[in-house]
């Protein structure tokens, strides 16, 4: 439903760089752009939203041309049905939460939609507060709400949770997943957080030097192969200790530390701080309700 074929000469971290993308995005897809700083991720979002003009190419959304440089078509950002959320909130500081949302309301939508969105983001109790009295997590919830008030079909998020601590980040990811589903959005997220990417997205496009280096499901992109283990978590190695004929590897997964028994051959290339996948078959774990 969205076809992006764009080229843009950019100033990369190591000199001039050509951003050259050919990307089709299905309706309802949750796509993450991943890659090092300066790979062209933010520029891509800016060109989709209309804030930056490509040098060449086309962007079609549901068959409508948003961009066709050869025909001199470049429709304004406000005419594209796009919600944009940045890392640094960008709320109006002199307005309350509700005023911020009302300001963003598109002409043909009702204030009822504001109530619904405040409900789903759980910010109703913050509506008469000014942004500078809110925590970072609250502000980012308001920023997402404000993007949704515009009834976008496409939601663009540029590292929205990067500045927040883990606990808040995990909760905001839940909110984001919920609004993506509830409003049937197509979402493009920029993120470096592999846990976040696995949790939210069904497709990852990895950019390097302005080109698509890899794409696929998060498992295909980050694991490199398919493994039938259903009990799989990404984590970080904290500690490795030899015990008798085996090694005990402590791994941080989200905010829990788990221990894995490993063999010498498995830990040969493993160092503290390495990202690892912990996998087991779905048959092994025991499940019980906690009272």
């Amino acid at each position, binding site marked *: 439903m969205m076809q992006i074929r764009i080229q843009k000469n950019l100033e990369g971290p190591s000199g001039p760089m050509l951003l050259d993308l050919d990307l089709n995005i299905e309706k309802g897809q949750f796509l993450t752009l991943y890659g090092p700083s300066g790979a062209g991720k933010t520029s891509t979002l800016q060109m989709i939203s209309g804030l930056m003009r490509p040098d060449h190419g086309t962007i079609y959304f549901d068959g409508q041309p948003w961009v066709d440089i050869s025909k001199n078509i470049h429709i304004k950002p406000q005419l594209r049905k796009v919600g944009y959320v940045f890392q640094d909130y960008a709320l109006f500081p002199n307005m309350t939460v509700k005023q911020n949302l009302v300001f963003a309301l598109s002409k043909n939508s009702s204030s009822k939609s504001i109530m619904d969105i405040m409900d789903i983001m759980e910010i109703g109790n913050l509506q008469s507060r000014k942004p500078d009295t809110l925590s970072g997590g609250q502000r980012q919830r308001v920023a997402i709400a404000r993007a949704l008030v515009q009834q976008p079909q496409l939601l663009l998020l540029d590292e929205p949770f990067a500045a927040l601590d883990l606990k808040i980040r995990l909760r905001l990811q839940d909110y984001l997943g919920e609004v993506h589903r509830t409003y049937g959005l197509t979402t493009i997220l920029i993120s470096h957080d592999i846990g976040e990417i696995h949790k939210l997205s069904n497709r990852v496009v990895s950019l390097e030097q302005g080109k698509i280096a890899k794409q696929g499901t998060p498992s295909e992109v980050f694991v490199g192969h*398919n493994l039938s283990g259903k009990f799989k978590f990404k984590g970080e190695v904290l500690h490795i200790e030899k015990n008798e*004929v*085996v090694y005990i590897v402590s791994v941080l997964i989200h905010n829990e530390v788990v221990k894995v028994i490993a063999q010498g051959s498995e830990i040969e290339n493993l160092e503290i701080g390495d990202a690892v996948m912990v996998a087991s078959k*779905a*048959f092994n774990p025991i499940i019980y309700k906690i009272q």
Partner: protein
Amino acid sequence: MNRLRGTISNIEVNGNLSLVTVHLQPPLTLKTIVVETPKTAAYLQIENEIDLLFKETEVVLGTAESPNISLQNRISGTIREVEQGQLLSKVLLETKWGGISSIISSNAVRQLGLSKGMNATAFIKLNEIMLSNT
């Protein structure tokens, strides 16, 4: 992690589960059950080459080749090395299909009298084998 390579020779699907039969050379059949089907996992195709992964701690060792037990994945070989710890020991089995390590209690090693050069059979439960298509 023990790793053996083979070719998928049969896939029996029921609901979300697949019973996958893998053929190794020289002829040996191993079976695994996975929570995937050919619809959810592209690598589940007959004649696909696949790696079988199983943890050392899930390998049962026996000195008789065909005891009356439910474990049908059986791989016979010769013990190449026994590394004994106080509680656990690692037994390295040399087989026609590659090396297989087993971690069992040191007590069991003593009780079975496992030592270098002896014949032994590795048994692996159906649900302990993972598939990987690297």
